[in-house]
């Protein structure tokens, strides 16, 4: 850091004169850094996004290597380790994980997605850096020792933690720190999935909940830079080798619809189980929590004696399912056992993510249904691998309730647009079934069980925005032309004395007339004078029927009446908006 000592603008000259080369380098560094800091904070934010992406990418590379290394050391390099090893390793490692997660890194337990959301909405973007270190160590040990969890969720949280730490150290404004956390989350997830588009969509769909232009660019930059960094070290290969996808006949879509129904049912089963069991587990005496990961490890180890495929994240097994290497019976058994194993791991409080297990269950379920279809309808040509691929998206959409992400994730992972239609059909059916019978989405359910109520992105997504047309009134208004005589206007409105009088002074120029003022003018001026000579308020702001009511509210307090006009003809009145009208509409919507 000695080189940075002279960076300050008011540093005295160094005792020993620098060489011309060093001096030139210093000059360039200083001018470059000044350029960044003297520019708007928005540009600094984008630069930071790239930096966060690179750091997150490096962290994810080390994390993935650490998981693999732990697995080599503890379970060996074979996909089918010996039975004693399979039982003892996750059981003993579970004890270490519990001590680390409870005593050393207490913030590592639970869902990284929810903790990131909590950081955004509760802690002003604060994610302690020890969470990053804790997640790295505990998850590497847990997943590497065979717990049925995945590395994506922790990667997301590590990215968020890195971003938060950088934002805080650079003294960014509070609002920027809140925004930078999702940027880091996207970077972490993108590197873990090797799928930047899906990661960006997931963060928007689940963490932020809105397409904010202010943060979108930074999220994309961070995701891309993290993926590029990750690929630099681990290669460009996707997580799975996807077989060729070909769909010849529209009848094949019936199979995908069946997969959607099965995926919806499996999602429900899984989430209902977690919903039922988690509060009961959390209510157990605290000392028991030290043994829960170990107990889960023992249970998974016992399953692993016969089905070692359910242990760990299971990418290699998913790859095999994509290449139709299992019978339909084995595929369905693996799907069920993975639900059981992942439930044990997650409920025990072992740190780790649900993304990879969800993909695993989906791949097995999809492959199983595809294989059954081949058995009974051999003339259908869609491969079992395609079903497994679509199954991943289906489970993702149904269980994690992120339908858009699930579609793009499958497209991105497969690099094939042919798969888009089946995954849309299947994922949507699973999502609708899951939503119908499980009102609260998984991530929201978990936060509520923890006593937090974070904004539900799904609920927000489903809210229908109120429009001006929902609150505008079509009656109680009289339009007056500027050339009308005062006496005529008074005569015309004699029957509707409460009506609002709007003067159409020109195209798009609407003004508000006061009846009392007209009557006063009538007594002072000659009755044949026109209404243009009467004093009016305006010009009034204009609203359109399809505008958001939220937007319109800022005008309602300033003006008692606001004209709502047609977009194609600013002189044509579609209705008026008043504060009473808005209140009535909001009340009605709440009752509905």
């Amino acid at each position, binding site marked *: 850091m000695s080189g940075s000592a002279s960076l300050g603008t008011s540093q005295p000259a160094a005792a020993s004169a620098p060489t011309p080369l060093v001096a030139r380098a210093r000059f360039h560094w200083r001018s470059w850094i000044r350029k960044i800091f*003297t520019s708007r904070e928005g540009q600094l934010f984008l630069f930071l996004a790239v930096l966060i992406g690179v*750091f997150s990418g490096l962290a994810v590379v080390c994390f993935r290597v650490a998981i693999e290394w732990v697995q080599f050391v503890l379970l060996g390099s074979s996909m089918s380790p010996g039975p004693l090893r399979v039982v003892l390793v996750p059981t003993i490692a579970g004890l270490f994980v519990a001590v680390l997660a409870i005593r050393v890194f207490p913030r590592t337990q639970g869902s990284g997605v929810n903790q990131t959301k909590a950081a955004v909405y509760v802690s002003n973007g604060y994610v302690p850096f020890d969470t990053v270190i804790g997640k790295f160590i505990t998850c590497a040990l847990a997943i590497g020792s065979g717990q049925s969890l995945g590395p994506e969720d922790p990667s997301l949280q590590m990215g968020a933690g890195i971003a938060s730490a950088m934002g805080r150290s*650079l003294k960014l404004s509070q609002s920027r720190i809140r925004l930078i956390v999702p940027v880091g989350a996207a970077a972490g997830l993108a590197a873990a999935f090797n799928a930047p588009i899906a990661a960006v969509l997931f963060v928007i769909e689940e963490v932020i909940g809105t397409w904010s232009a202010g943060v979108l660019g930074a999220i994309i930059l961070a995701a891309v830079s993290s993926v590029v960094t990750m690929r630099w070290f681990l290669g460009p290969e996707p997580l799975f080798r996807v077989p060729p996808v070909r769909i010849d006949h529209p009848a094949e879509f019936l199979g995908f619809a069946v997969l959607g129904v099965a995926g919806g049912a499996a999602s429900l089963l899984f989430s209902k189980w977690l919903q039922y069991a988690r509060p009961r587990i959390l209510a157990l005496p605290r000392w028991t929590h030290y043994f829960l990961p170990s107990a889960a490890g023992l249970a998974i180890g016992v399953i692993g004696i016969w089905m070692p495929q359910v242990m760990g994240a299971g990418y290699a097994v998913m790859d095999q399912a994509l290449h139709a290497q299992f019978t339909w019976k084995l595929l369905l058994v693996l799907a069920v056992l993975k639900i059981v194993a992942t439930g044990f791991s997650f409920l025990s409080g072992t740190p780790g993510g649900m993304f990879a297990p969800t993909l695993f269950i989906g791949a097995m379920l999809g492959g199983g249904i595809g294989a059954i279809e081949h058995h009974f309808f051999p003339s259908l040509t869609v491969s079992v691998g395609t079903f497994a691929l679509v199954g991943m998206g289906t489970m993702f959409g149904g269980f994690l309730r992120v339908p858009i992400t699930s579609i793009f994730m499958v497209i991105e992972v497969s690099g094939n647009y042919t798969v888009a239609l089946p995954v849309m059909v299947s994922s949507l059916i699973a999502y609708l079934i899951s939503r119908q019978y499980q009102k609260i989405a998984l991530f929201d359910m978990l936060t509520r069980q923890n006593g937090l109520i974070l904004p539900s992105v799904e609920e927000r997504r489903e809210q229908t925005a109120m429009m001006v047309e929902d609150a505008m009134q079509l009656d109680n208004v009289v339009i007056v032309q500027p050339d009308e005589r005062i006496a005529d206007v008074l005569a015309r409105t004699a029957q509707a004395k409460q009506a609002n009088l709007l003067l159409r002074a020109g195209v798009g120029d609407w003004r508000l007339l006061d009846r009392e003022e007209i009557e006063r003018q009538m007594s002072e001026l000659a009755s044949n004078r026109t209404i243009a000579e009467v004093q009016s308020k305006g010009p009034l702001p204009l609203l359109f029927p399809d505008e958001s009511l939220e937007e319109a509210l800022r005008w309602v307090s300033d003006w008692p009446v606001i004209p709502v006009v047609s977009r194609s003809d600013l002189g044509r009145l579609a209705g008026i908006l008043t504060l009473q009208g808005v209140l009535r509409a909001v009340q009605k919507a709440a009752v509905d």
Partner: protein
Amino acid sequence: MTEPDSDTPPSTESLSGTASKTENGGHSRERILFAYLVSLAFFFAITAFVARRYHKKVHTLADQWSAKGDSAFQQGDAARALGDYRNALVYSPNNTAFQFHLAQALAAAGHGDEAQSYFLSLLSESPGSGPINLALARIEAGDRATTDAIRYYHDAIYGVWESSPLEMRWQVRRELCEYLLDLGANEEARPELIALGQEVPPRNIAEGKEAGALLLRAQLWAPALDAFRSILESDRHDDDALVGAGKAAFELGRYSEAVQYFNQLPLDKRQSADVSTLLETLESVDTIDPFLPGLSVSEQAEHAAKALDVAGSRLASCAEKRGEALSQTPPVTDAQKLFAARRNAGPDWSRSSLERHPERISAAMSVAFQMEDAALTECGAPQTGADRALMLIAKGHGGANP
């Protein structure tokens, strides 16, 4: 990672910090950013080191598991090889050689569908690959999907072979020929067999013998004789080639040439079942065929009379076996009618009469052929060399169905 803040969440908007230089224990933004860039370089270097170690380890594991798989496969333990190759592929999933070996092990272990899936996946990446097409052809042949099997065999023949392409293409064609002959598709096999015979590498005796044997199986006698002759040009004492050439010559009706080949064989070979039967038949042909070139009228008459006796005996023994009275009058069955015709001809077809009237030899032989044919229909293939010889003579003159 620089972590200048304490681990408590900020609670106010006091951290406005839009200025480029903010006091924080004496650190400006520039310095913090510089520290980040330095730590990034450091982190990059560490990650590079870790990643390199990881890749090295992964490659080593992949190679180790693959070697184990090769060893198990060579020992015939396809099931163990399967697990080893799968482990190898976990560490090197895009290695097409491992995928190919795994698919081979799958096929050997009876997992045809999985093997096919792997091979098809490999084929989509290298559609012109000879080995992959050959493996698929074998799977399709096992599944009795003849059309696809033939297509893959052809693709393998015209495909790319990295080592010894001519040799491999010839072997694939040989396998295709065997497959077609096993199916009984001799017509489809013929062009392949002819090409096979023509493509035998010069001085390659083993392949020449294989081609000749297949040509014999397909009853392509002339090309088979050519194939064996070309071997004999290189080694005129090759036993297999002599037997093959003798059989081909025999079937072509070149009996003296056939005897010549057989006589060159060592005694033990001549006494082997197939050769001795043929020799016995050939000797009978020599004694009963009146149409052999260079025979005197007397010899022709003698041969014809013997042929009539052989056919008569065969017909009588067949009738006896079936409990049929050949002398029944009036004759009803074909055998009885032929017997009656022979009896009625009586002295006209005696040796002396035929010698005096050689123009009757053809008519006598025609009845002999018909009798042999009738016996063949009723009692099956002949057992003695003389009967077989008579059938051969009939075949040469269009008189009976061999």
